């Protein structure tokens, strides 16, 4: 954000910072912002390209998180034997 934009932002936009805008974007995902906060966020996004870029990346992350799936990975035979051994030993001396 240029210094000109910054000055404009703090003068007309209720001085919402990018840090706060991120908070409101996250709260909005849960529907936990008021209407006036929503308006402030829109106004901030209207003039802040960086936060618009953040918002786009944020949506990408949220979407990709939903697409995560468990991979088929295995413990080694040695680790499995150790688990059996450790549990049975622990039990014997407890």
């Amino acid at each position, binding site marked *: 954000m240029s210094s000109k934009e910054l000055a404009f932002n703090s003068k007309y936009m209720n001085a919402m910072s990018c840090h706060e805008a991120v908070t409101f974007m996250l709260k909005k995902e849960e529907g936990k912002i008021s209407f006036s906060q929503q308006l402030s966020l829109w106004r901030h996004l209207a003039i802040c390209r*960086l936060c618009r870029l*953040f918002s786009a990346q944020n949506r990408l992350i949220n979407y990709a998180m939903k*697409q995560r799936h468990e991979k088929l990975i295995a413990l080694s035979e040695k680790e499995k034997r150790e688990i059996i051994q450790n549990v*049975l030993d622990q039990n014997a001396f407890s």
Partner: protein
Amino acid sequence: MNQTLPEVEKAQRFKDWVLTYSDMLFGHAVFRGFDHDAARDLVQDTFYLAWKNMDGFEGKASVKNWLFVILKNKITDHYRESASQAAVFVSGHSTQFDSAGHWAKPSYPKELTVNLSEQQDRLDFQTILEGCSAKLNTIQKAVFFMKYMDDLESDVICRQLSITVNNYWTILHRAKVQLRACLQKNWLLIQNI
């Protein structure tokens, strides 16, 4: 002899459980953001509890479901423990913003060309997402996975982790901003190869 025989049988059945279910449980723990060693320890703890409670189990649910319930409780315990140590972490200011709360120049978000409907992009993006989320600290992972994978609401997460709402938003904010920076950096890196 009559008294030792069931013990032998019990141990044999226990061994079968470990051989049959440990990979599934391990895979789940890794999926929930634990590294190899931590995931293996969680699996061992799960089986330890299962062994101790084997007599009380006897077919009330499927073995697999029962083991998963134990593992999930273990994971929540682990998360909660890390949350109780997170007070130090949530104070202090993120370096990605300047003192006025605007993006610091090295952290400027940039335009990324990602098309998740294309297979190569999707695979690359998922790989980077895995690597970057592995770098979050335990409490960040806890909040992040509970929110975006389990679809839990903030009040439920706060209750389960015993954290305040303010801390929740701070942790989530920090996690998201950090993950985004890591993704952008690595995405631009592979785009330029």
